C-alpha cells in the first residue's frame, strides 16, 4: 500500500507542470489552484482542468499544445495564459486546421503552414468574420451533404470563436468603468474616477435607490451616468454563456444553474439582490488579473479565488469530487499504465529470446500487474467521481474491456504458466489504452459526461452494461488468443510446441465459455432493461442484434467443437472471426446511424474498424493455409509409410 501511495505521489509530482516562458511565470501552486477551480459546463460541475483539457482536444486535437516559442503547454496552463495574457496567448498555435483549403477560401495565405496544421488565433483573426459567415452557410447544409472543406470550415470557426471568447472571459476583471464627475453614482465611490465590475455589484442596491429617486425627475445627466455604468459593466462581462464558474449563493435545488459575471451583472441590473460572496469572488478575480505579472502574488490571489469558489460550491454540495477529478487528470494514470504495458511486452519479447532467464518474465509480470493496478485505480477514481458503475460511456467501455481482458489473460497465465498469455495481456493492455487515447482525441468531448435520461440508472448500468462489456472483453481476448495460435502454427509449422499450442487452444475455449456466460446474460438483461424503458423485450434494434450476433457466434463455436466439427485450429480460427463480430457489435452498429441506441453513435472510426475486420479475416484465411499444409503433410507421411510398409513386405 505504501509503495502504491509513494508511486502515486511520485507520479503526481512528475505529471504536474511548471511553466516558465515569455517572461511570465506560473508557479506550480498557481497552476494547481487554477486546475481545481470548479466550473459548470456540459450540465455538471467539474474542475477547470477537465474543461481546459477537452476544450483543447476539440480545438487543437491535442491536450499539450505548443506556444509561439515551440514549448509544450499543459492544458490548464494554456487556459491560464489565455485568460491572463490574451495578447500573448493569441499567438499560440491551438486551432487545428485539417485542410488548409478551408482557409484559402477566406483569403488567408497558407504557404507557411502544412496542409494539416495548427494555427494561432492571430493567424486567423483577420479572416474570422468571413470564416464565420462561411461556417454559418455550411451549418445550413444537411450534415450528410456537407463537403469536407465545409466541415473543416465549421470546426475551425467554432474553435476560433471559442478561443476568442475564452480570451475575453477575464476582461471584466481587467477593465475599469469610468465615472461621470460629480454625479450621484460617482459619489458612491468617493475619490475614484473609475470602478470595477465588483464595485458595481457592491453598489447595485444604492444605484437602484438613486434610480428610483430619479424616476420622477428629468435629470438626464444623472440617469445617463447610471445607465452608462450598467452598460459598461455588461460590455466588460461579455457573453453570458461562455463558462459558468460562479456558484449561486442559493441552494442547489432552487438554483441549479451556475453563473457567469455577465449573469451577475444582468441580475443585479434587474434589481435582484447581490450576494456578498459574489462580490468577494469578483474582487478575488480582479486581484488575480491585477497580479498576473508577479508570480508569487499571483499564486496567493489564485489560491484565494479558487478557495472562495470551492467554499461556495461545497456549501451547495457540489464540490465533492472536483479535486479528485483534477487529480485524475493530473496523475495521468492511463499514460503510466500504457508505458508499463509496453515495457512488459518488451520484457516478454526479450524473455522469449533468452529462454533460460526468468528475470525478464518476472519483470514482465510485475510491469503488467503494476500497469493493471494503475488502470484499475483510474477506473475506480472515475467510478467515485461519477458515482456510477465502471461503464456508462463508449470511452469507458474501452477502459473496462481492456482491464477485463488483461485480468483474464493474467489469470490464464497463472493457471497455465505458458508465458504466452502474459505477453498477450501486455499487448492487449497497451493496445486498449492506445485506442482509448485515440478515441478521446477523435471525440474531443468530456469523457465523464452526464447521461441522457434513459441511461440514468445505476442498476442497469451495473448489471446489463457491465455484463455485456465483459462479454465483449472476453470475446476479443479469445480472438487475440486464437490469432496467436494461428500465427504460431503458420510460422513454426510442424516445429511448434504441441503442448503449448494445445494449452493455447484450451484457453481459447475457456475464454469463449467465459465470454458466452456474460454475453448471454448481458444480452437478456439488455432486453429486460428495454422492457422496463421502452415496453418491449426485443425490437431487433441494431445494438440488440449485435449482442445477439456475439451470442450466436460463441454458441455456434461451442456446439461445433462439442460435435467435433472443429478442433483446435478451427476453434482458434472461429474465435479470431468472432473478434470481428464483437467489433461490429461494439462499434460497427454505431456507424449505421439507425436504432434506438442513439446515444452511442460515433463517427471517424471506420478506418480503424475495417483494418481490424480485414486483419481478422486474414487470420481466418491463414488458418486455412495452415490446415491445407497439415493435410498435405499428413498425406505425405501416409504415402511415405505406405512406401515403407510396401518395401518391408
Amino acid at each position, binding site marked *: 500500500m505504501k509503495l502504491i501511495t509513494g508511486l502515486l505521489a511520485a507520479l503526481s509530482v512528475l505529471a504536474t507542470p511548471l511553466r516558465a516562458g515569455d517572461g511570465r511565470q506560473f508557479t506550480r501552486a498557481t497552476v494547481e489552484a487554477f486546475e481545481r477551480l470548479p466550473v459548470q459546463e456540459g*450540465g455538471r460541475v467539474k474542475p477547470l482542468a477537465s474543461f481546459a483539457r477537452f476544450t483543447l482536444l476539440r480545438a487543437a486535437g491535442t491536450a499539450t499544445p505548443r506556444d509561439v516559442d515551440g514549448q509544450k503547454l499543459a492544458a490548464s496552463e494554456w487556459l491560464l495564459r489565455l485568460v491572463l495574457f490574451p495578447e500573448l496567448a493569441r499567438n499560440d498555435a491551438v486551432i487545428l486546421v485539417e485542410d488548409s483549403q478551408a482557409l484559402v477560401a477566406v483569403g488567408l495565405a497558407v504557404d507557411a503552414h502544412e496542409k494539416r496544421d495548427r494555427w494561432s488565433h492571430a493567424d486567423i483573426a483577420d479572416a474570422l468574420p468571413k470564416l464565420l459567415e462561411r461556417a454559418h452557410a455550411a451549418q445550413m447544409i444537411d450534415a450528410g451533404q456537407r463537403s469536407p472543406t465545409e466541415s473543416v470550415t465549421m470546426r475551425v470557426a467554432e474553435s476560433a470563436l471559442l478561443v476568442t471568447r475564452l480570451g475575453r472571459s477575464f476582461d471584466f476583471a481587467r477593465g475599469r468603468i469610468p465615472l461621470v464627475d460629480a454625479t450621484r453614482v460617482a459619489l458612491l465611490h468617493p475619490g475614484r474616477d473609475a470602478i470595477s465590475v465588483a464595485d458595481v455589484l457592491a453598489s447595485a442596491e444604492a444605484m437602484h435607490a438613486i434610480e428610483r429617486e430619479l424616476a420622477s425627475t428629468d435629470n438626464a445627466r444623472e440617469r445617463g451616468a447610471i445607465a452608462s455604468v450598467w452598460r459598461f459593466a455588461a460590455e466588460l462581462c461579455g457573453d453570458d454563456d461562455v463558462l459558468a464558474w460562479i456558484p449561486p449563493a442559493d441552494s442547489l435545488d432552487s438554483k441549479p444553474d451556475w453563473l457567469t459575471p455577465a449573469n451577475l451583472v444582468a441580475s443585479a441590473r434587474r434589481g435582484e439582490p447581490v450576494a456578498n460572496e459574489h462580490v468577494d469572488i469578483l474582487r478575488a478575480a480582479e486581484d488575480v488579473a491585477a497580479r498576473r505579472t508577479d508570480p508569487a502574488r499571483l499564486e496567493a490571489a489564485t489560491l484565494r479565488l479558487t478557495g472562495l469558489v470551492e467554499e461556495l460550491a461545497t456549501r451547495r454540495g457540489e464540490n465533492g469530487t472536483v479535486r479528485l477529478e483534477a487529480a485524475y487528470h493530473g496523475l495521468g494514470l492511463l499514460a503510466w499504465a500504457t508505458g508499463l504495458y509496453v515495457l512488459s511486452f518488451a520484457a516478454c519479447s526479450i524473455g522469449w529470446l533468452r529462454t533460460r532467464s526468468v528475470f525478464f518474465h518476472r519483470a514482465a509480470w510485475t510491469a503488467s500487474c503494476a500497469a493493471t493496478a494503475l488502470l484499475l485505480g483510474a477506473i475506480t477514481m472515475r467510478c467515485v467521481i461519477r458515482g456510477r458503475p465502471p461503464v456508462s460511456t463508449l470511452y469507458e467501455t474501452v477502459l473496462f474491456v481492456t482491464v477485463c481482458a488483461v485480468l483474464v489473460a493474467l489469470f490464464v497465465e497463472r*493457471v497455465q504458466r505458458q508465458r504466452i498469455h502474459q505477453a498477450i495481456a501486455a499487448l492487449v493492455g497497451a493496445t486498449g489504452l492506445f485506442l482509448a487515447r485515440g478515441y478521446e482525441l477523435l471525440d474531443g468531448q468530456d469523457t465523464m459526461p452526464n447521461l441522457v*435520461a434513459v441511461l*440514468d440508472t445505476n442498476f442497469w448500468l451495473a448489471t446489463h452494461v457491465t455484463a455485456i462489456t465483459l462479454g465483449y472483453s472476453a470475446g476479443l481476448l479469445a480472438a487475440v488468443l486464437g490469432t496467436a495460435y494461428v500465427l504460431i502454427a503458420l510460422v513454426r509449422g510442424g516445429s511448434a510446441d504441441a503442448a503449448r499450442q494445445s494449452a493455447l487452444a*484450451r484457453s481459447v475455449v475457456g475464454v469463449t465459455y467465459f465470454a458466452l456466460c456474460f454475453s448471454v446474460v448481458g444480452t*437478456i438483461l439488455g432486453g429486460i432493461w428495454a422492457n422496463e424503458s421502452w415496453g418491449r423485450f426485443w425490437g431487433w434494434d*441494431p445494438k440488440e*442484434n449485435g449482442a445477439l450476433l456475439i451470442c450466436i457466434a460463441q454458441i455456434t463455436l461451442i*456446439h461445433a467443437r462439442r460435435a467435433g466439427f472443429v478442433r483446435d485450429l478451427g476453434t482458434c480460427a472461429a474465435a479470431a472471426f468472432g473478434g470481428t463480430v464483437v467489433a461490429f457489435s461494439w462499434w460497427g*452498429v454505431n456507424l449505421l446511424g439507425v436504432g434506438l441506441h442513439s446515444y452511442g453513435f460515433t463517427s471517424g472510426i471506420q478506418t480503424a474498424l475495417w483494418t481490424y475486420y480485414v486483419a481478422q479475416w486474414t487470420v481466418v484465411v491463414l488458418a486455412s493455409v495452415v490446415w491445407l499444409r497439415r493435410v498435405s503433410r499428413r498425406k505425405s507421411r501416409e504415402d511415405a509409410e505406405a512406401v515403407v510398409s510396401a518395401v518391408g513386405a
Partner: protein
Amino acid sequence: MRVIGRRAFRVASSLGLACVLFAFLGVLTWLGTLAQVENGLYDVQRKYFESYVLVHDAGGVPIPLPGANLVLSVLAMNLVLGGFVRIRKTRDTFGVLIAHAGIVLLLVAGFVKHHASDDGRVTLFEGQSASWFESDFRWEVVVSEPQGYGSTRENVVPFDSVAQATSASPVVIELPGLPIAIEVREAHVNARVTSPRDDSGPHIAPSARDPGAGRNFPAVRITIAALDGSAREETILSGMHSTPFTTSIGGRRVQLDLRRERHALPFALTLADFRKVDHPRSNMPRSFESDVVVDGQRAVTISMNEPLREGGVVVYQASWGPQGAGPDARLFSTFAVVRNPADRLPIVACAVIALGLVVHFGRKLARATCVRRVTE
C-alpha cells in the same frame, strides 16, 4: 419405419442441425441489421424476423433464405429433442440442461409476446384522460352510429383486410345491424389527399411507403350504399384527417373514420402534469416525468425506467411535446402501452440461464485449475 424414425430423430436432435440453424440465424440477424439503414425497422422486421421464407436481394442476385420464424421454430424443436431428450443426463450436463430450460422459457416468452400481446401509444395533454391506446402501425376503418346519450356503436374493419382493394376488384364490407354496405375501391398504405383547382374533387395521391412505419398515413376511397339501393355516396378517408366523415344514408346517420387501431385500457388514465428537466446549463434532458391519475383516484409518477404496471398493462414514458414549447405552454406526454401476459418471464429465463451457465462453466473451470494443480 422405425429406422427412418430413429434417423429422423437423430438428425432433428443433432448438434449439426443446431450449428446450421445458428449459422442461418446469424446471417439473418446480420442482413436484417444492415437492411435497416435503407428499409427501416418495421419492414425489415417483417421480412427477415417475422417470416418463414424470404428472398434476400444481394446486389440484384436473389438469394432464398429461411425466415427467422422458421429457423427459431426448428431450433426450438432441436433444442427440446437434443437439449433435453437426447442429451446424456449426467452431473456433467446438469448445467447445460438448466441453461436449455432457460432458453425454452425465453422462447415461450417470445411466442406469447408475438401472438398474445398488444402494444401502442396514447398521447395526453395535461388535464386530458383516455381509456384506450392506439397502435403505432396498424390502422382500421371504423363505421360508427350514434346511439344517444353520448354513446356510439362501432363496426371496426382492420385496414389490412381492405389494403388490396382496387376499383377493378373492390372489397365489400357488410356491416351487421346497419342497412348499408361499404365498398372499398382504392386503398394505399401511405398517401395524401389533394384537392385540385379544376373542381374534379379530391383525389388520393399515393406516396412511397416510408421505412419508418409510424410515419405512413393510409387513405381509402369508399362507396357507401344503402342495402335497398336507395342511396349511394362516395368519399375519401385519410389517416391524416382528424375528424370523421359524417353522412345520413338509408335513414341512419353514420360516421366513417380511418384511424390507428384502438385497444381498451383497463383503467382511465389522466395526465396531471408533465415535466422535462434538463441538466443545468445544457440541453441534455435529465428526466422526463408524467404525474398521472389512474381511474381518477390513484396518483402515480411515470418516468424513464419507471413504468406503471396496472391491470395487466404496462404504461411507459415514451415521448413529449410540443417540441420547443415555451415555459407556460400546455405540454403533452406520449405513453407507450403494452399488454403482454409474459411480461416478467424473461427475468425468470435470465436467472435460469445464468444459473445453468455458471454451473456448467464453473465445473469446467474448477476442473481445469485442478488438472493444473495435479500436473504440478
